[in-house]
């Protein structure tokens, strides 16, 4: 068995699931300041374009490619009542399943999970975002922290999903 797989054993799937479920609750409940607290100081948030789900944001136009600085600005923006796309805030609910630990190296653990996220706004269509989360987690003394948050949508195009103005 590879060293990385052995090291991965030091984090259990139950621990990863606890982390993912907690993160989902923070997002669905709009506790975004707390949510920033579960990110590492070098965290990134990436939503690849629907037609290039495996691409690199440095040479491909993504839907979202935030470093930690812009992520903090994004939270400022979407909690501002003048962020019209999210005022009043969308109601979202996400279900997470099929959680797997893909590998580990040093203090980093790569995990993947399937998700469905429903988004509701008054007088607007219901929107159903379905895809996989592919996260790189860092083990710290305070517990798991999120270093890379990649959200890969299954839809062939955003189409009726419209914008992604909330944290998906």
């Amino acid at each position: 068995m590879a060293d990385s797989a052995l090291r991965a054993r030091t984090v259990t799937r139950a621990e990863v699931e606890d982390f993912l479920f907690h993160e989902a609750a923070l997002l669905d409940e709009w506790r975004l300041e707390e949510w920033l607290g579960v990110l590492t100081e070098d965290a990134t948030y990436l939503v690849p374009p629907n037609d290039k789900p495996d691409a690199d944001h440095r040479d491909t136009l993504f839907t979202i490619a935030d470093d930690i600085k812009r992520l903090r600005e994004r939270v400022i923006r979407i909690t501002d009542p003048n962020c019209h796309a999210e005022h009043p805030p969308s109601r979202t609910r996400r279900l997470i399943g099929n959680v797997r630990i893909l590998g580990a190296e040093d203090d980093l653990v790569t995990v993947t999970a399937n998700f469905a996220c429903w988004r509701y706004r008054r007088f607007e269509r219901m929107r159903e975002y379905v895809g996989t989360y592919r996260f790189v987690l860092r083990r710290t003394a305070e517990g798991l922290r999120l270093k890379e948050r990649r959200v890969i949508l299954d839809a062939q195009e955003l189409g009726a999903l419209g914008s992604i103005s909330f944290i998906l």
Partner: protein
Amino acid sequence: MDSRLPRKPGYIVDDPANKRFLLNREVLVSPEILDHEQRAIFARSWIYVGHGSELKQPGDFVTRRVAGRPVILCRDSDGNIRCHLNTCRHRGAVVCRERSGNTRRFNCIYHGWSYHNDGRLAAVPGADAYAPSFDKNQWGLTPPPRFEAYRDFWFLNLDRAAQPLVDYLGRATDYIDLVIDQSPSGRMEIIAGTQEYDIAANWKLMVENSVDDYHLPTTHSTWLNYMKNSGVDVRPSKEAGMLLPTKGLAIDLGSGNFTTDNVNFRGRPVAKWIPIYGEDAKSEIDAIRAELVARLGPERAARVADTNRNLVIFPNLVINDGSSVTVRTFFPVGPAKMQVTAWALGPAEESAGARARRLDAFLTFYGPGGFATPDDIEALELVQQGLANWQEVPWSEMSRGMGKDSDFLNSDEHHLRIFWRHWNKLMEGA
């Protein structure tokens, strides 16, 4: 009822003497008017299909819908760019289903007719069952009635009698040239990654929104805050009538085409540094600018690098040359719904670092996850919701800046009126 309004309402009230311009809101909600637009606008105008850079090798193709028509845009084995209406000449099925790829032939899965990538019919299974009068040469894939390019931007026209594309573009070609001059080799390319999203609003609201700088301070205050937090000066100019830090104009280019032409304050990958790019980007931005000056001279270089331009090619192509370069097109799929496609455009030879910076800059404002576009989408959808009152509240007020004797500003509605006048002319059959 306002007694000055016409008894039988037209689409617009254009009343320069009284500095009054009104838009009949029915044009944004009516299925009958949309049907008429399909004939009077989309079947007669030059409609953007794609860019030559999307087809790098012979045999490369992309498929998309243009004016409701499924089309194949491809580079044939001899290197010629072609457009085929994506329908089998036999019984009608689309002959190419992939989004993009490379092929020598397009094969119909129904009865197996196959076509060379230049459109010629290659093979028909069981050809011996056809009479000798059946001439394979007559049954190739059909091109649109007209298909022409200006500097690798390819357009189709469903009207065989349409004026040549270059005449239709008219003075808009100057503004396309300004975009292309950013590339040392004159080669701009579409970058991988497509943003495709729907807006529950009439397509013409997107034309207005793409060039309307009046809405920027209110709709996009959170973007302005982000710019400010990142060290960009966004305080409005003290000059009369101005809402933004620098002066911008609205310019009529003829044939329903128009542009904004703004002094840049928000940074440009080519070539105006802002703090968001990071200190280590300064030297490369300086080098990009020095190349521009050496190649174009200081005046033209400043024209390219210090102005932002949102260009509309009537009816539905928008090229925004600002924080980044976006190419955006959109089609109605009902009076209250449009499908938007947006790409990023960049110099073919730019460095990996400059390319990454360009894409990052794109996302600071544009796209369905950007810091501004989602609020535009919200604004347009709120307009469409409000328009359900069109019978009781039938007119929109669009006179801002009308009748002034100085330049029209980007925050006036002069350029919006240019669009509506041209649209009205075509719809009235003039």
